[in-house]
């Protein structure tokens, strides 16, 4: 399998969120705004890449019997470290994401990639896999939050997590009266996610399908 293909697989075909239903807890909970989605996505990408590299580096000395425990320890320390760094340098984002940062430890994507890929491949490949999968996850979060933030607030806002300056604000004020605040609640999260999951199911089986059913 060549590297480029591998890298791209994370976006559609092996998209961890919509395709494999991994890492859903955080994907649904923090996808209320683009800010949170970007922050969480990059956080996961960073941890995933680093954990993939470390695990790949120690794959030869890791006793096979206790692979999983070793991965858990490595991931937990990485997450703790990132958590502390975020609290120090991006306090606002840290406060918004809250407990979900620590819960990256049990994010199935990270352990899953360590197990399925990093334990068998070299450092560079593992790093690329981590970035690819991480960006695939980020991309999924962005899709969900793009829809949810707009439906719930009739606008999109992106802020700089380091100093809380608003970088971009797109608001369609004439739609203001029609916003559906339900989309910032859990019902909206499930609903948006269901639509995307259906859409990805269609994309995945495209060749096999005659009748195209666009998800709304």
């Amino acid at each position, binding site marked *: 399998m060549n590297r480029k293909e591998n890298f791209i697989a994370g976006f559609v075909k092996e998209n961890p969120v919509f395709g*494999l*239903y*991994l890492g859903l807890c955080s994907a649904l909970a923090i996808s209320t705004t683009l800010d949170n989605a970007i922050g969480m996505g990059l956080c996961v990408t960073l941890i995933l890449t680093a954990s993939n590299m470390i695990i790949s580096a120690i794959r030869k000395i890791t006793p*096979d*019997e*206790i*692979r*999983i*425990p070793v*991965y858990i*320890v490595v991931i937990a320390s990485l997450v703790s470290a990132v958590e502390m760094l975020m609290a120090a340098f991006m306090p606002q984002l840290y406060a918004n994401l809250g407990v979900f940062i620590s819960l990256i430890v049990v994010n*199935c994507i990270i*352990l*899953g990639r*360590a*197990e*399925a890929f990093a334990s068998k491949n070299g450092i560079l490949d593992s790093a690329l896999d981590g970035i690819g999968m991480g960006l695939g996850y980020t991309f999924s979060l962005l899709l969900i939050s793009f829809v949810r933030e707009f439906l719930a607030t009739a606008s999109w806002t992106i802020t700089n997590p380091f100093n809380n300056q608003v970088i971009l604000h797109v608001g369609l004020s004439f739609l203001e009266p029609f916003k559906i605040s339900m989309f910032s609640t859990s019902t909206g999260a499930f609903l948006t996610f269901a639509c995307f999951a259906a859409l990805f199911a269609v994309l995945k089986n495209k060749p096999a399908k005659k009748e195209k059913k666009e998800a709304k």
Partner: protein
Amino acid sequence: MNNAIYAAVFALIMGGLYAALYYLNHRTPVPKGCENLKEECSGCSISSCANHPSQSKIIEGE
């Protein structure tokens, strides 16, 4: 800097305990009548779960 030493010793104990338990657990044979449980698990895509097909070879490697 005692702090770091405490932390290291504490993690040493916890990590050792986990490894020992993990290994012992996987050596404990599955009781009668439960051998086929894994096949029954229609499961999900969590590949790190011990029931996932990709996990079946770990312990036999002794």
